[in-house]
């Protein structure tokens, strides 16, 4: 007997069905979340310390600034290039320092391989402190200690990057296949061998990915370090702004974009080659 009934596919006198995209529970949650977000935003708008008349004139002001910046002043390029190179150097050396320090920190901060609770705790504290303090703030600190110059910038980049890489590489260590480690343990290898043969080869791809990603981020960070005196193009930028040299400002902005794009291109190439 056929399961299909005969007759028109659509009969106006049939029962009506109700259909909702979301279940009742889902709808309640969605409603509540929208409500919470709405309330929070309204409160924020109401209490934020903003001089509203200036808000309405903002588009005009922005347009004005923009037109003053055009066209970019190409004659400042010879002045910009060496500083741009310094910016790249700061990012590169800072990242390299950080890589060297972050490897042992990542190892000690990984729950499955850390020798004891103390090393785990210490490593975790280092990682958290490093990650929570912005590069620029580290730069403030180092400029206060060592005086202005690219060295302060390199250290700022390094100190910030240790936490970033330590956390991500540590997480990838926590996810490794434990089998090869057991195999080497059972054959009587010392811890050093186990790390070199069983841990390192498993995390190499993610290590390179993290390192090159951080270098890319660090190039952006290095562009502003000069504003607190830690070297790089930030200083040129600040000076041009203070002197209202808008055409130079836009030239500096263009060169920053160029340098960042350069970083992205190199990152893409390295990623393809190594991972």
């Amino acid at each position: 007997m056929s399961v299909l009934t005969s007759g028109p596919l659509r009969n106006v006198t049939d029962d009506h069905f109700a259909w909702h995209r979301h279940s009742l529970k889902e709808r309640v949650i969605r409603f509540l979340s929208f409500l919470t977000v709405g309330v929070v935003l309204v409160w924020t708008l109401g209490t934020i310390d903003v001089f509203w008349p200036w808000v309405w004139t903002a588009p005009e002001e922005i347009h004005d600034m923009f037109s003053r910046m055009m066209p970019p002043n190409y004659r400042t390029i010879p002045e910009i290039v060496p500083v741009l190179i310094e910016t790249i150097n700061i990012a590169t050396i800072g990242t390299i320092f950080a890589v060297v320090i972050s490897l042992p920190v990542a190892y000690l901060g990984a729950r499955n391989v850390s020798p004891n609770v103390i090393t785990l705790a210490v490593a975790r504290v280092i990682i958290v402190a490093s990650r929570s303090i912005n590069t620029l703030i580290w730069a403030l600190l180092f400029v206060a200690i060592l005086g202005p110059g690219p060295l302060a910038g390199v250290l700022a980049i390094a100190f910030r990057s240790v936490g970033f890489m330590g956390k991500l590489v540590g997480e990838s260590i926590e996810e490794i296949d434990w089998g090869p480690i057991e195999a080497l343990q059972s054959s009587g290898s010392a811890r050093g061998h186990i790390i070199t043969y069983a841990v390192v080869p498993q995390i190499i791809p993610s290590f390179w990915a993290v390192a090159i990603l951080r270098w890319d981020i660090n190039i952006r960070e290095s562009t502003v370090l000069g504003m607190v005196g830690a070297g790089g193009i930030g200083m040129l930028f600040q000076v041009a702004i203070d002197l209202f040299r808008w055409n130079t400002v836009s030239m500096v902005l263009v060169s920053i974009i160029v340098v960042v794009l350069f970083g992205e291109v190199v990152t893409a190439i390295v990623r393809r080659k190594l991972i």
Partner: protein
Amino acid sequence: MTRPADGSSVGTHYAWKRPHFIENPFVRFGLLTLAIGYLLYAMSSLEVDLQRIARGIPRAIQIFSGAIPPNFAARGSLIVSGFIESIQITLLATAAGVLLSIPFGFAAARNISILPFYGLGRAIIIVARSLHPVVLGVLFVKAVGFGAFAGVLTLVIYTLGFVGKLLAEAVEEIKYGQIEALKSAGAGYFTVLAYAVVPQIMPRLIGLTMYQLDINLRASAVIGLVGAGGIGNTLNSAFGRYDYGTASAILLVMIGIILVVETISGKLRRFTK
């Protein structure tokens, strides 16, 4: 196959070396030389003045002795208001920024956009991503004055750069079949967007928003250093006054808040998966 007990070696000898990552020796040594050359040159350009470093040590001690213990009391109310302002800036900027990223993200996705919009969208997102929020902060402060408004504008553009790009990538990764099916049923462009594209990227978008909240909170602390409002202002003035006790108090609260926000956003993200 067994080794003779007296340690002598019998039979043929084999040579083995671990295969190199780059086989061609010229390329290998060439790259190595270039790398080392660059490093030496770059390090030398650092102006490492040992005398200056030596003078820096007493200064460092001075800073750390001022920083410990952290001083929450002296400028307590300023610290609190500074953080509240940073949070306000973060909330508004993330909301507005994510909303703005949606049209830009869609425009910058090759598979659902037309060429002029794609080019424009991509270009704007690239510019927004390349400029550090501090740079944007300086520009907006000059344009609209000091304070939270400049901060919000800065982070809106910052968010646009990040969420916009990731959103565009998410859109480019969706299954095209769903779009095709709706198109072939005669649905208009925006209907297709609403039914085929949005549901696929919505979970991703929510995740990105949470992530961006975290990132914007950190950034909001920094843009204050150039006058765009928030705790950065308070921190800057503390450093300027050599008030390291207040500075370390601010940093500790910053670490605490970031940790809390991270934990919350991590839990929320797992909840919405």
